[in-house]
């Protein structure tokens, strides 16, 4: 992890500290919090204040890392290991979802663009630590790995998201790890799949007249750059420009800083972010009203799972990067 990456993360997360410091600061309350809400219990669900859709739908890098650590411990007992998670997730799990990011549009400000380019806009957790691990196995060993990891895939637990059925195996190392961190496999499915239904409102938000007007102003503001980079929506700029980066961790080039600056100024002048946010918030408020009981349950489960996850990560304080990352 480069010093540059640390700087940009700290900027976005208002001076966030590395994991070991976070753990030291938060472990005082870990045990009490974890014990107060038993796995699958209802200790916090009634009292959890509902802040908003964004908190309900937020993922958790801490939770995912704790599941990965538990999963990996189980796999190692059977002679396997996990090809992920990435080094970034291991070192900075709380950063994977740290940026407030309304789905469908990144909040790029002129200040951020002029200093960091698109460094923060690029998702940091894209690659596996060892992508060839599973593929290098024989077919027979791959099958054994699948059985150890996923168990009997016909023996499942399921959840209904509206009418959608999502099933996962209730056996295997992964199921055990998820249940230990989130409480049960049913609860894991709730926190993972129920929030996804909010994505139905992205198209509606983009189709609203105020957003289309702002989009027209934004594209006009870009001038010739729009055609040169085939930009149809603001985040196209991020994808086009960042695709030419040799590494996400590298410093932005002068060209990137210039383009990001233009992009951010046009976003600001066109009012595209505010227009889109208003349209999406309106749709999301309806989603929250329709899903209130489930959303409150998801939030309570997520909070309890994060407390457990921090305790688990604390127990793995001597994470062996050399052997696993």
């Amino acid at each position, binding site marked *: 992890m480069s010093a540059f990456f640390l700087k940009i993360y700290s900027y976005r997360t208002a001076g966030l500290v590395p994991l070991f410091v976070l753990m030291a600061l938060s472990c005082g309350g870990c045990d009490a919090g974890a014990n107060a809400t038993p796995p699958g219990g209802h200790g916090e669900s009634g009292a959890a204040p509902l802040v908003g859709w964004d908190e309900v739908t937020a993922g958790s890098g801490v939770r995912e*890392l704790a*599941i*990965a650590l538990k999963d990996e411990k189980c796999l190692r007992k059977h002679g396997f290991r*996990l*090809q*992920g*998670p*990435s080094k970034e*997730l291991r070192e900075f*799990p709380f950063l*994977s979802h740290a940026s407030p*990011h309304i*789905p*469908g*549009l990144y909040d790029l400000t002129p200040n951020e663009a002029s200093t960091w380019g698109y460094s923060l806009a690029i*998702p940091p*957790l*894209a*690659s*596996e630590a060892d*992508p060839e691990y*599973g*593929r290098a196995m024989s*077919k027979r060993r*791959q*099958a054994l*790995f*699948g059985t150890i*990891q*996923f168990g009997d*895939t016909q023996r499942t637990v399921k959840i209904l*998201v*509206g*009418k*959608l*059925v999502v*099933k*996962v195996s209730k056996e*295997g190392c*992964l*199921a055990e790890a998820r249940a230990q961190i989130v409480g049960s496999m049913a609860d894991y499915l709730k926190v993972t799949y129920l929030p996804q*239904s909010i*994505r*139905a409102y*992205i*198209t509606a938000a*983009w*189709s609203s007249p105020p957003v289309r007007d702002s989009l027209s102003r934004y594209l006009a503001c870009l001038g010739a750059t729009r055609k040169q*980079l*085939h930009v*149809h*929506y*603001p*985040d*196209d700029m991020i*994808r*086009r420009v*960042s*695709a030419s980066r040799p590494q*996400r961790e590298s410093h932005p080039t002068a060209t990137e800083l210039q383009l990001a600056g233009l992009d951010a100024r046009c976003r600001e002048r066109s009012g595209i972010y505010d227009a889109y946010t208003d349209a999406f918030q309106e749709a999301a408020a309806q989603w929250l009203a329709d899903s209130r009981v489930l959303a409150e349950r998801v939030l309570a489960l997520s909070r309890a799972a994060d407390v457990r996850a921090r305790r688990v990560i604390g127990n793995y304080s001597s994470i062996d990067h050399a052997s696993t990352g």
Partner: protein
Amino acid sequence: MKFSKVCTLAGGVAIAASTLLIVPTESAQAATCNEANKFCGWKDAGYSNTRLIFDSSPAGSRSIFASQQDQMSSAKNFTNNKWCGVDQEAFAPDHTVISFGPGAQVPDLSVYGGYVNDNIDYFDVVTSGGTCPHSF
């Protein structure tokens, strides 16, 4: 092919540090998906009709249907990565409509609404704890 697809492909879009993999479509009827390290998607509900995708692309990749985008109706993910199903359309930017975590089996996308069923154009593959590039 929708208007925005033409534009996006012409623009040479690529996620950062990714490889782009075009996945062949199988003509075999109701092919199974009982292999570890594979993501599978079928044309019809109940894992039936043509298997459109049978892939083990690594995290950081984009997995694109060779043909028959906008047709997938059921899927199983027996990889250890998260598969982010992305919709390309004319009136919104590319966006993830559903993500399949490791071990997920979804027998019928049609009941989830038209924005998911027969609407996925490609997948961005990220680690299980990663964030879908076109989503939150």
